[in-house]
């Protein structure tokens, strides 16, 4: 193999930058290379997600593997005379970029009308959420192992088996366009979750959290919760399926609300009769009271408990939004094309940022003490759609389920399959408690404890 050919595999565009992810300067140089490679006056947009990820995974009280992974995803989009073409690569060097540009120019002939061209330069405030943490970036493998070893020891001392995972991530999102848009935002995030199981499989407990900062991730406390849940869930007994008062931990509330969040698309809810917030042709249910009047749901990247890169893949900014206001559906999300063509406004309203469900005054202890007969739920798993229109889903409880009788937790019980709609659940609320950041690495969420009536547990499962 010639040396010349080997050199082609190197990285002249970023000067062999050896940082763990691309800097803003590197992204700007990449954009310059795109423009200089172009053979016409097409508008150009470069979208880059550059990441470093480092992980520790363990099972059966031993570290199973660790990893250090880096990658860049870059999409070049070029547009001329309302025709656009795009091409995606992860190899960042001059020649690959030039070739990607040529592919985009070629793909323009297949462009479809109405394709939303990214990189529009909105004249909107640039929010600057605090989502960078040096502690995450500098948490090296040695320090991480020093964190993990005591957690393994505590599980072992409890005669339990733990399986867990720490993931650290740092990176940058960049959207740079020939319309003058230059957006680059660095971020960090971390997640910690652990499952503790009784060695013969007669009990299982789980706890986890994620954050853009390391400090809120109290690994000792999270592990302790998982061990406690495991120990208190041993030898579960069968309880008849049926409708029960359910006390939902914040993770369970978030799991259910995530279903609603999947259907925030305004355009679809105005056009598709089988969508849950469709009212009539061209009209959604915005303005109608759909949930309990105590429910307020917001998104705001400046929310210190949520955070998030302040713009999406197209460069459009995330703006603070109230999705539900005292139970009334207040807004639904739409893209730039829909904003301009249908709503005659310039700015899109994006979903996909973090979600906060407001908290209430009732502590968990009071929820339990005021319950004659009910079920305490840790979390839900494997939820699948049964009916989109009513948001009826089926799924399973997992990693800790207890019967509450006469104001006390009396016994661990076997897991249930449920068949339920979050629209029904969040309309059947008895009490709302304090909220906290839950484990939701792909969409940061803050959710409260909730006690709800008539939750439909439809059948038993022996799975633990």
């Amino acid at each position, binding site marked *: *193999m010639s040396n*010349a*050919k*080997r050199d*082609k*595999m*190197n*990285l002249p565009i970023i000067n062999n930058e*050896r940082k763990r992810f691309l800097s803003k300067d590197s992204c700007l140089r990449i954009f310059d290379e795109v423009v200089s490679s172009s*053979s*016409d006056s097409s508008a150009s947009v470069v979208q880059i997600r550059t990441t470093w990820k480092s992980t520790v995974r363990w*099972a*059966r009280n*031993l*570290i199973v*593997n*660790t990893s*250090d*992974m880096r*990658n860049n995803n870059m999409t070049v989009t070029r547009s001329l005379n309302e025709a656009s073409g795009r*091409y*995606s690569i*992860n*190899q960042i060097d001059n*020649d690959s970029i030039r070739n990607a540009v*040529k*592919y985009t*120019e*070629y*793909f*323009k002939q297949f*462009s*479809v009308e109405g394709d939303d061209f990214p990189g529009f330069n909105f004249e909107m405030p640039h929010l600057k959420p605090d989502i960078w943490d040096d502690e995450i970036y500098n948490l090296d*493998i040695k320090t991480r*192992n020093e964190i993990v*070893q005591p957690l*393994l020891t505590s599980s072992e001392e409890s005669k339990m088996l733990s*399986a867990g*995972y720490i*993931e650290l991530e740092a990176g940058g999102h960049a959207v740079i366009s020939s319309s003058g848009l230059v957006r680059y935002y660095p971020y960090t995030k971390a997640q910690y979750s652990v499952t503790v*199981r009784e060695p013969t499989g007669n009990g299982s407990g789980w706890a986890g959290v994620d954050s853009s900062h390391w400090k809120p991730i109290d690994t000792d406390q999270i592990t302790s919760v998982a061990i406690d849940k495991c120990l208190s869930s041993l030898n579960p007994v069968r309880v008849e*399926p*049926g*409708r029960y008062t359910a006390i939902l931990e914040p993770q369970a509330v978030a799991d259910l609300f995530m279903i609603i969040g999947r259907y925030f698309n305004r355009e679809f809810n105005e056009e598709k009769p089988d969508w849950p917030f469709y009212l009539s042709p061209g009209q959604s249910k915005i303005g109608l009271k759909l949930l309990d009047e105590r429910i307020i749901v917001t998104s705001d990247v400046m929310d210190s408990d949520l955070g998030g890169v302040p713009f999406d893949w197209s460069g459009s900014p995330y703006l603070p939004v109230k999705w539900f206001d005292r139970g009334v559906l207040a807004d639904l999300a739409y893209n730039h094309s829909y904003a301009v063509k249908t709503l005659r406004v310039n700015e899109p309203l994006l979903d996909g940022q973090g979600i906060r469900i407001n908290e209430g005054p009732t502590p968990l202890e009071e929820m339990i003490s005021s319950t004659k007969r009910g079920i305490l739920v840790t979390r839900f*798993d*494997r939820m*699948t759609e049964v*009916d989109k229109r009513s948001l009826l889903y*089926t799924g*399973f409880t*997992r990693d800790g389920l207890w019967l509450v009788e006469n104001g006390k937790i009396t016994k661990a019980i076997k*897991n249930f*399959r449920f*068949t339920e709609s979050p629209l029904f659940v969040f309309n059947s609320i008895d009490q709302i408690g304090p909220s906290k950041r839950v484990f939701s690495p792909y969409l940061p969420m803050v959710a409260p404890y909730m006690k709800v009536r008539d939750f*439909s547990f439809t*059948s*038993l*499962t022996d*799975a*633990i």
Partner: protein
Amino acid sequence: MTTTRRNLLKQGAIFSAVPLIGSVSGQYREALPLQPDGSDRALFKSIALKAVDAAKSLGAEYADVRITRQVYMVVLNAFPSEIQEIAVGVRTLINGYWGFASSPYVNDEEVVRLATDAVSQSRINATGRVRSVDMSLAKPVQGDWSDPAVLDLLTVSYEELHDFAAGWIQKVEQYNGVGSRRCKIVLKRTEKVYATSEGTVISQVQGKASADFELMLSNGTRELKKTGSLHLPLATAGWEYVLQAKPFEQIPKLIEEAKTNIGHMVEPVDVGRYTVVFDASCTAGLLAATLGPATQLDRAMGFEANAQGTSFLNKPLESLGSQSVSAPIINITGDRTIGKGAATARWDDEGVECKSFSIIKDGTLADYQTNREQASWLSPYYDKSNRETVSNACVSGDSALDLPMQHMPNIVLHPGSEDASFEGLIGDVKDGIAISGAQFSSDFQFRHGGSMKGVVRKITNGKLAQYLTDAGVLFNTEELWKNVKYIGGKNSSVMESFISVKGEPVQSSDYSVFSVPMMVEDVSLIDVKRKA
């Protein structure tokens, strides 16, 4: 003139088809990551060996290196888009502890950095409690392999793909009463180079293809929103796979199918226990939701406990060779050698030659899906059975960015000895239920599950009768498979494809299930929308 990547690479003037673009420099061919003539395979092998040597010199007891390069093309309706990804991953083992580092920069300097990083991780991990890894025997291999796809992605022109999709849509729109229509074609091409410190150096090229052609009749009523569809599950194949399905000729049939999906009388489901006949696609879905993933050894041993879950078959050494998990007529093998299977390869991603291995033999648990490390966990059973302790070659993954992991092989439910079809099995049922096109899900140990969607019909005196609305099944996995009374013959076999999702971080891998229809007694039929 049509444009293929191969043309793009070989002919600088390819962009002459696009008037906006001038001539392409000769540098283009040199620079493009894809080199269809295979010349870069040698380059990748030398880079992989450089990483192996670096890891060994730094003290790795074992090291392996994967380099992958993928082209992923989607034609949605008539609009093509494409992604290229290249990656290298280095894995090392020291004193029972793994280290892994990966990157999109495939060059000598970077792979030495990755090797150094991976070795450092292994060393630091090994300072904790004692752990042993016994890599089961794998004979070092050298070689190159390409799948037998006829029309490799690189040989297909963008124009042909665009014109094909646009032409299909145009033809569909000529029929009265057709509302929306959808055409999605996916073509993937993955090249892998793999080298180990034990002397294995191999390369593989695999093409995959799938397609969905769907139309919907419409007059605005809900009942008319039924579809006719041609679904080609992901297969190890080239563009010929789509052409051979003749989507243009299928249009009248799809319209008829859509028409039969409307206007029929439906009855509410009468819940209870029935003899149920599942079509071959449903049986494949049931395998993918139950016995397939349940026989992954890492799940069974608790290694996926914090992720996708564990398995009800969680005592391997006690269960192997003795635990009955299904009716005796059920024989299931894992097989990554079978034609068109989405997980088909010559070697797995640990360089172990792929093979067919029995998972369920005459209804009894016979083996688990394993990698080299996991195989040694079963060595007491293999020793007792006078079998060699070797991996079942189940490591896979499209991207070297991900840590190599055990994933699903293709799963084969062996046909029955009699040549029974779905219709034939229905003919044997006096009063029962027939289900086709359903989807299945199960809990995190695959103990219990149920179905959603699908077409559910009564069987009366051996014939299909009324359609049932909102009907589905609920099952206990072991009961379901033990209650299988008959299965279809070889002529009723179909292939469906699925995605194996596991790990932290989550990674996925494609696989196929080859399956036949089956008749199962005493199955719970439920109203899926009925709450407690």
